[in-house]
């Protein structure tokens, strides 16, 4: 009789142990993805000379193309896509802006490409705009994110989240640059935003972890 009770107790304990093990394993597998991480703003130093301005940028950006932006007195943002060579970007007088971006508070409300084929719809001299921004304390700098021309991260996010309430949003930072932000609680950790980001502004927060 006592042997039978001990056997039953052992079976129950074994069953409980197996259940506990299975529950733990499935918990670990339930959320295999990683959260995105975002590159911070690019620190730039300016050197103005007669007819050109040289921007020194971090060496890690060497060889890339990035946006140099400046706001005018009306609060409209203008940007030019420039190559970085030897850790420097040079904007010369006569380098016209590629894009005009309208913002309202922290929101981007629209944009317009200013060059079509080989002619400019409107010529906005970026050197003069940068000088004006520097002299008058207007916002200017370097932005790596290509929004609003590029929306790949948002499209990736929309492809997994039904409805318009996606965790990833774009906003205008106090420094004037546009950058992505996300709501951690809503993020399903699918990884599409950092997998699809073509310029590396959004990265994997845990790159060493297998997904």
């Amino acid at each position: 009789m006592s042997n039978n009770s001990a056997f039953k107790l052992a079976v129950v304990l074994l069953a409980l142990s197996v259940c506990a093990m299975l529950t733990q394993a499935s918990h670990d597998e339930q959320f295999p993805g990683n959260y995105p991480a975002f590159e911070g703003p690019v620190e730039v130093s300016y050197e103005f000379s007669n007819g050109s301005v040289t921007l020194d940028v971090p060496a890690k950006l060497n060889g890339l193309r990035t946006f140099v932006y400046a706001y005018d007195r009306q609060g409209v943002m203008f940007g030019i896509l420039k190559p970085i060579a030897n850790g420097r970007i040079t904007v010369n007088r006569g380098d016209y802006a590629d894009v005009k971006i309208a913002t309202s508070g922290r929101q981007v409300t629209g944009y317009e490409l200013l060059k079509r084929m080989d002619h400019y719809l409107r010529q906005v001299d970026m050197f003069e705009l940068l000088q004006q921004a520097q002299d008058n304390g207007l916002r200017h700098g370097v932005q790596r994110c290509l929004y609003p021309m590029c929306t790949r991260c948002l499209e990736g996010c929309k492809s997994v989240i039904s409805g318009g309430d996606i965790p990833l949003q774009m906003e205008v930072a106090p420094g004037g640059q546009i950058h992505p932000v996300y709501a951690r609680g809503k993020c399903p950790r699918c990884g599409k935003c950092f997998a699809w980001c073509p310029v590396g502004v959004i990265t994997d927060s845990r790159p060493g972890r297998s997904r």
Partner: protein
Amino acid sequence: MKRGLQLLNVAAMVVLMLFLGAIVANGFASRQPWSLVCYKCKACNNSCVLGIDPQGFVDAELAGNSQVYIYTTNVRLPLAQAAALDPAMLITVEDRHVTARAALDELHIAPQQEITTYRVQARHAAQFCLRCGACEKECVLGLPLLRIIEKLRNSSGPSLHLEDRDVQ
């Protein structure tokens, strides 16, 4: 007379059908038959911040030749890099379109001076492309332009980062 015209009509139809058949066969031979439906509306071109004409990528893919020249009107790079990539690349210098070699040898422009491209080989344009997907988003037919660009990038060797090239 009537019989002769009928024969001429039939012959013209046969030639026309052979021509159209060759176009379709070429599309399938290039493994991109969908590219035949591109009707060159240029909606993609107007959305590219680098001034690349993505229709050129479609043509390059259809022709099976990544060295066809396509419009790329807003890529800025040092003249030395342009000449090292392709001396025959067309660049814009003071509203003129000249080759990179001519800009160096005939116009005597400094090699480190920044120029703007005008027409470059499709493989180089694919390397310059930011892959932002604006062209694909604008395409009314939903052609997989990013897929072609990726294929051209992979077939054109190492990336064209500026530090990979000698800029003197």
